[in-house]
Each structure stands twice: as C-alpha cells, then as structure tokens.
C-alpha cells in the first residue's frame, strides 16, 4: 500500500466509471445507474480511507505524488492533501455519492447524464488534490462545460428558462476565471526569475519570504484572484448567478454546485490568496469583511421574500458564504478554522436541502411555496431530511452547522466586532426564512391533492441517510471535522501572526 497512488486513484475512479458507462448501451438504464453508484462507492471508500489514514501528528501534505508534466513552464503533476483539502475531498465524494442516488429517477438520456456527472466529480476532486496551480485551473475550468450541458438538458424551466440559467452560470464563472487566470499568470511570472519558474503551490508560497513578491504586487494579484474566487464563492456583488443557476439546474447539479463547487472559491482564497499572497490578503481583508456582511444580510433578506423553494436555498447559500468570507477576513487561526469547517457543513446541508427539494418537486411538480403544505403527512422521510437541513442551516447546536459558525464568530469578533455583530444578527434572517419554509411546506393541515405522492423510498433514501447521518454525526462529534481542519490551519499560524503584527493599510478606512 505504500506506493499505491491513492490520490490519482481517487481522481481517476470517476473517469474510469465514465468510460465504462460510454461502452454500455443507452437502453441499459439499470446497469448505468448501478455502475455509477458503484464507481462513487469506490471513490468514497478511497477518500474515507485517506481521511482515516491521514496522520495528524505529522500534519502537512500527505499521500504526495509528484511528476514533472509540462517541463518548459514548470508544471508538475503534484498531488497531496492536508487538513484543508481532505475535508473538501470527503465532501466532494459524499455529495457525489448522494447525487447519484438523488438522480435515480432520471430516465431522460440517463447514459449521458451519468457520464457528465462522473466527469464533473473527477474535475472537482482534481481541484482539491492538486498542489500545482496550473493543474488546479485546468480542473476548475474543466467542470464548467459538463455543468452547462447538464443544466440545459435536464434542468427545469420555472421562473427562468434553463437555457438562461445555464448560460448565466457558465459565462459568469468563466468571466470570473479570466481574472483568476491573469492573477495566476502574473503571480507565476513574478514569483521567480525566468528559468526557475514553477506553478507548484508550495514553492510559490515561499516566494514572498524571499522577497520576490513586492507588497504592491501582492495587493494587485490578490485583487484579481479575489474577483475570480469571489465570483465562484458568490461574493456580493458577484453572486447573482447562484440563485438563478441553482433554480435551473437539475437536483444533482444543484447539490454538487452549492455543496462543493462553490467551496473551490473559498479553498482557493485560502490556499492561493492567503498562503501565497499574505500581504495582499491583509490589504483586502477589511473589504472582504464588508462584502461578507453584505452577503449575509442582503442575501438573507432576499431569501425571506422568495416564493420558489430553490430560490430560498439559493439565496441562503449566498448568505452562508458570507460567514465563510468573514471568517477568512478575520485572518486568524480561529476564523479560518471556522471558515473551512463552515464550508464543509454548508456543503452537506445545502446538498441535503437540494436533494429534498428535488424529491418534493419530483412528486408534487411544484416548488412554489404557497402551493405546498402539510407534506409531512404524506412524506415523513422527506420532511425529516428537510428538518435536519433546515435546523443545521440556522445553526442548531448538536448539528453540523453550529460549531463552525460559532468558531467564525469567535474568530471574527476579535478583528471586526461591528461586522461580526451584524453577521450574527443575520442568523435571525436565516431562522426566519428557514422556519417559514419548513412551516409552510411541511406542516399544516393535510392536503388532499398531495395524497397520491409517495414518500422517498429505496434508492432515494440514500442521500437522506448518508448526508443526514454526517449532519448529526459530525455535529455530535465536531472533533472529527475540526481536528482535521485545525491540523491544516496550524502551519499557517506563523504567517497569520506575522500579518497581525504588520500595520493595517485599508483597515483604518473600513473599521
């Protein structure tokens, strides 16, 4: 087992699954679904093994693989995971596994659907395991097109057409990535003299210590990256793709997009922004904190008035990303711990939310909140999932959302007391819109028109069981998650301490 390329195997498993699917005939629906499920089970098993086998006492990058890839520009096929990327990788496979089962009832062109789904998951997994910035961008942009095709074929046209939402999602993210690409290229060019240049993240992270990256340059490059990663993380005002996109997307895409893909933005901000450009992060942190509050309050406020279930959760996910951003902007160990923990927690709960909405929509053919009601009578299991996700979303202690959010507030309160207070106040909005949809959709008198709707059963229960048990399990034993995250954040503490000592630039303006 010593030399087994575990991370390559994790990334390639979905690709091999997709190749298997291509060779199956279009009509073999059952076997297509079984193969996809098995593929994801294998991938999930690999990741779970990696998560358990990761050695806390050593920390740092583990399961490392490194091979030169494009020699003339210094790109290497460098893989490795640490306490930051492992939770993200686990999240990817958990949601991917659930997404296969959440799409169990797809009978329109199932072969293409599952092929695209597996390619998408391979791409997302790739972004979290790579330690090379070029390969990171490569995987990130790779996932955009499968998502587009999935939205336009299997999406739903309610408030916006699926063509519109698919195109908006794609172009928005790609335009953001144009800034990201330029940021990465300037970073690559400036960090080392010609001949020594590399895209390796670890090497780039040392460049500022050699004094290769001037403060002004860091500020400039971080700005470009902030636009790119920020629009992916749906940072206000670059958030508008997110509710529209989720509304048009099929359930599995909404789950993966809201659950994992968005998190690449936060992951990138920490991994690239903070580790490679610390002075840039310091400069822009107050701005990020301000925008984070805008995220929390503005999106929370809009979620209150939405009538479409998917829009409520879409805006709620924008609002939750505000917590991640403010935790990041605090630039202390506690805040960043919370930010990463919250990315994981939000991933699980939003995926569960979208899966449940998918079931409700599939059975009742509506997502319009006023048209729904009393579904707990007919669908107790779906209602349970809804309740779990909703309660986690408003940060109920004992569920996964509480500890990360609490950590974020502790971390950010030290740096931005006013913003932190405002963000905490945002929880009121969250409670309002979550409880409102729970009450309107699940409870109330039994309605006769939904009597024909069957509860989730069989394969449909898998997302509920898997995500629900993680939601409760990680909530009761937060150490499983936070211990891992903490081991990843620990190596950053010296940089953060140094930053803390450095004078603030913009800070004075915004505090």
């Amino acid at each position, binding site marked *: 087992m010593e030399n087994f390329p575990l991370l390559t195997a994790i990334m390639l498993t979905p690709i091999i699954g997709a190749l298997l699917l291509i060779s199956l005939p279009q009509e073999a629906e059952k076997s297509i679904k079984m193969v996809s499920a098995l593929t994801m089970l294998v991938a999930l098993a690999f990741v779970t093994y990696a998560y358990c086998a990761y050695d806390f006492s050593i920390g740092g990058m583990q399961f490392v693989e490194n091979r030169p890839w494009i020699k*003339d520009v210094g790109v290497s096929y460098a893989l490795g995971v640490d306490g930051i990327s492992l939770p993200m990788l686990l999240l990817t496979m958990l949601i991917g596994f659930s997404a296969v089962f959440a799409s169990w009832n797809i009978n329109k062109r199932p072969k293409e659907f599952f092929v695209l789904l597996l390619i998408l998951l391979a791409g997302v997994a790739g972004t979290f395991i790579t330690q090379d910035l070029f390969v990171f961008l490569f995987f990130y942009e790779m996932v955009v*097109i499968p998502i587009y*095709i999935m939205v336009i*074929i299997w999406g739903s046209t309610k408030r916006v057409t699926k063509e519109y939402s698919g195109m908006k999602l794609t172009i928005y993210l790609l335009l953001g990535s144009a800034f990201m690409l*330029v940021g990465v290229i*300037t970073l690559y060019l400036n960090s080392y003299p010609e001949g020594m240049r590399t895209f390796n993240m670890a090497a780039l992270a040392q460049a500022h210590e050699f004094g290769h990256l001037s403060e002004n340059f860091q500020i400039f490059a971080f700005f470009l990256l902030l636009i790119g990663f920020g629009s992916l993380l749906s940072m206000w005002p670059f958030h508008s793709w997110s509710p529209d996109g989720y509304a048009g997307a099929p359930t599995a895409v909404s789950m993966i997009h809201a659950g994992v893909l968005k998190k690449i933005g936060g992951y990138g901000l920490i991994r690239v922004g903070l580790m490679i450009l610390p002075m840039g992060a310091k400069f822009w942190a107050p701005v990020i904190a301000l925008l984070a509050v805008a995220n929390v309050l503005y999106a929370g406020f809009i979620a209150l008035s939405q009538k479409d279930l998917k829009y409520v959760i879409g805006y709620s996910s924008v609002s939750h990303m505000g917590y991640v951003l403010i935790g990041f902007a605090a630039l202390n160990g506690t805040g960043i711990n919370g930010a990463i923990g919250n990315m994981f927690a939000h991933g699980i709960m939003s995926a569960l939310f979208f899966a449940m909405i998918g079931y409700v929509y599939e059975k009742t053919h509506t997502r319009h909140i006023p048209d729904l009601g009393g579904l707990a009578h007919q669908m107790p299991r779906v209602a349970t999932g809804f309740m779990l996700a909703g309660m986690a979303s408003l940060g109920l202690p004992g569920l996964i959302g509480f500890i990360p959010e609490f950590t974020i507030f502790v971390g950010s309160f030290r740096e931005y007391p006013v913003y932190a207070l405002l963000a905490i106040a945002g929880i009121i909005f969250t409670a309002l819109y979550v409880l409102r949809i729970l009450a309107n959709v699940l409870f109330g008198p039994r309605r006769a028109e939904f009597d024909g709707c069957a509860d989730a059963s069989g394969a449909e229960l898998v997302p509920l069981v898997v995500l629900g048990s993680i939601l409760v399990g990680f909530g009761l034993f937060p150490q499983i998650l936070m211990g891992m995250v903490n081991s990843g954040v620990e190596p950053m503490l010296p940089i953060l301490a140094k930053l803390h000592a450095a004078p603030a630039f913009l800070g004075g303006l915004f505090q």
Partner: protein
Amino acid sequence: MNIMLLSSEIAVICLALLIITLDLLLPRFETRRSLGYLAVTGLSGVLAYTFTLTGGPATVYNGLFIMDSFALIFKQMFLIATLLTMLFSTDYVENLEGYRGEFYALLLFALAGMMIMVSATDLLTIFVGLELMTVTFYILVGFQFNSIKSSEAGMKYLILGSAASAVLLYGMSWVYGYTGSVKLAQIAYHADVSPAMLIGLGFIIAGLFFKIAVIPFHMWAPDIYEGAPTPIAGMLSVGSKAASLAVMLRILFVAFIALQTYWMAIVSIVATITMIVGTIVAIWQTNIKRMVAYSSIAQAGYMLLGVMATDVNGIKSIIFYSVLYIFAIVGAFSVVVAVRRNRGTNEIKDFSGLAQQSPLLAAVMTVALLSMAGIPPMAGFVGKMYIFTAVIDNGYIGLGLLGFIMSMISVYYYLIVVKVMYMNEPQDQKPFLISEPLRIAAIISLLATLWIGIYPGPLADLATTAARSLFIL
C-alpha cells in the same frame, strides 16, 4: 547546392501532377474517390518523410530557400491540415458536378505554395509562394459552379485578394528601392528608420494582414467562408492564415527587427481590435460557417498577440496555437460537412439533436469549438496560457486580461452551438450517414485536441526549437 532540401515540395508537386494525369486516364464514371485516397496516401508518405528531416538550418539556391526548424514545423502543419481536409472532403468531392480530380490537384498546389512560403528568405520567393497558394484558392473558392454564392465568393476573393497582393508587392518594391535587396538578411542590414522603409513596412504588413484576415482587413472572410466549399473554407482559415503568419514572423523578426517599435504599435492596435470585434460580431451569426469565420478572425487576433511578446516564448506560443487550431478547424469543418450532407444546410439551428443522432460528431464539434474557446482539457487552454503568459511576461497585462475576457465571451456563441446539438430534439428520424474517411478525420482531430491539451510537453518542445531557429539567423 543541396536540392534534397526541396524534396518534400517536389514530392507534393509530383503528386499533384500524377493526380492530374491519372484523372485524364480514369474512366468518366469513376467517382475520383480513388484519387483522394491516392493523395492522402502520398501525403502521409511525405509527412512521414519530413519527420526524418532535421531543421539544419541549411540553405539552397544562394540562400533564397531555407530549411530550418521553423519552416519544418510549419510544413508539417500544412501537410497534416491538407491530409485531414482531403480525408473529410472525399464525400464532398464525390457530389461535385465535375472536375473532381482537379480539386485534389489544386489543393496540393496550394499546399506546395504554403510550403514554399515558410521556407522563403527573400521577398520575391515569398511572393511567388504566396501567389501559388492564393491563385489556387481563387479557383477552389468558386469551385461549386452551380452555386451563385460560391461563384460570388470566388469573384470577391479574386478581386480583393489581387488588390491585397498588389499592395504587398508595392510595399516590397519600396523596400527594395531603399535597401537595394530583396533578401531578408540584407534588408535587415540596410534597414533604418526612414519614411521609405516605413511605407514599405506598412504596405507589406497590410498585404499580409489581409491574408491572415484580421480587422480591418477582414471584410472578405465571412462572405467567402460562407460561399466557398466547406473543406476549402477550412483550408483558408488554417493554411492561408498560418502560412501568412509564418511569413510575417520571418519578415518582421528578420528583416524589420530595427523597426520593432513601429510594427509593434501597429500589431498591438490591430490585435486588440481584432479580438474585440471578431468576438462580439460572431455572437449574432446564425450560419455556422459565418460564425466560424468571425471566430477565426478572433483567433487570428490571439495569435497576432503572440507577436507582441517578441521573444522565443511568444513565437513558440504562436506555433503551438497554430497546431491546435488546425485540429480544431478540421474537427469543426468535418462535422459541418457531415451535417450539410445529411440536412442540406449550414444554419446553426439545423444542428439540432445531433448529440442523439451521432454522439461522436457532436462530441467532436463540442471539443473543437471549446478548444478554440480555450477550455480545458482541450488544447486551446494550454495554447492560450502560452500566448497570454508570453504577452504578460513582456509587460502587457492589460492585453492578456483582454484576451482572456474575450475568449470567455466567445464561449457564449460556441455554447449556443453546443446547446442546439445537445438540448434540442432531432428534426427527423432519418439515419445520419457518416462516411468512414470523415469519421477517421474527426476522430483524429478529437484525439489530437485532447492529447495536446492534456500532455502538451512534446509539442511545446518542438515549438520551442522552431521558435529558437528564427532567432539564429
């Protein structure tokens, strides 16, 4: 004198003559498919042979003709492009009214012209090669004699192309008059900043810009792409563009290196306008060939941007991009030919449901278009990274950013085609016929695009060697 340096050109011309002769001997009812296969086989042989050649550099005819790595890689590119184009045009040729054998022969003559151009080291040889290519394209563009559009395109190309050639020649005459030489190295020796040289440079660049089809010298391109036979449109956008770009690189970096500040100003303005306008205007096109025409204008803008880097990395990126562009265009146009054959039109809406009728061709089209847009894992992503990295490295961050933004906007109109193919239902349930040669060409372009995109190292090394050889001179 080492005549062997010309061996690949001689082989191509002999092949063309052989095809003309055989065409006369074959019975009338024969479809001339055999001649197509003969040409493809012959070209494969020549291509294999070129891989045994070394990019010396060595010269022949008193230094008028050079064989260096730069020329060699472009020759190989043209050979591959022509070979694949012939593969997917066999069906197309079969449906022509007549003169089927000549189609292949003329294409080979155009190929010979391109191959001579990239090896030429003096203005006259350049012009001869250029005219050999252009004159054959005049004929080929109007090759569908029963179609008014094709004839109109042929006529248009003839008139505008001749005017551009005249402008080019006029510029050359100024340069000759001032420096007393047509040899690029000699010109470089005598060149200084004088009005005569600037006028000459301006006219030469303008003439070449016309062939590369960059804005504002692009007016001919959309009409001619639309009217010309589809395989010829593909060759125009690949061969004519790459050959003229190669010639321009040689002229600018060898003969006019002293006037760098002047031509860099021109190139930067033209490249910027081309990227913006080419991308924006393509959004409104409803005909696939016109759309590709405008997008190929934008692509020329990206390649031209590589000139701004003015170093080995810049030229390497241009060469790399030209190679991947060949495969993208071959992929796209082979699908266009197949759709035209089955559905009878070139409108984008007639691609509806292609993903269900022919998953392979839909995938080839998607991969080709997204490669042009620069989305990984297609080759275009790496190509654009090379170009924009080289450009940004030389301090033009704004141009790099603009290039990336424009390529992301271009995804919009490429995705419209993808949408029509994947989302819409097929128009009819008739079986979708694809001939074997076309399928082979499509698969080759698909695999090559993915291969270069995922493992670009070997091609990048070749391109670097080629780019270096331009600076040895």
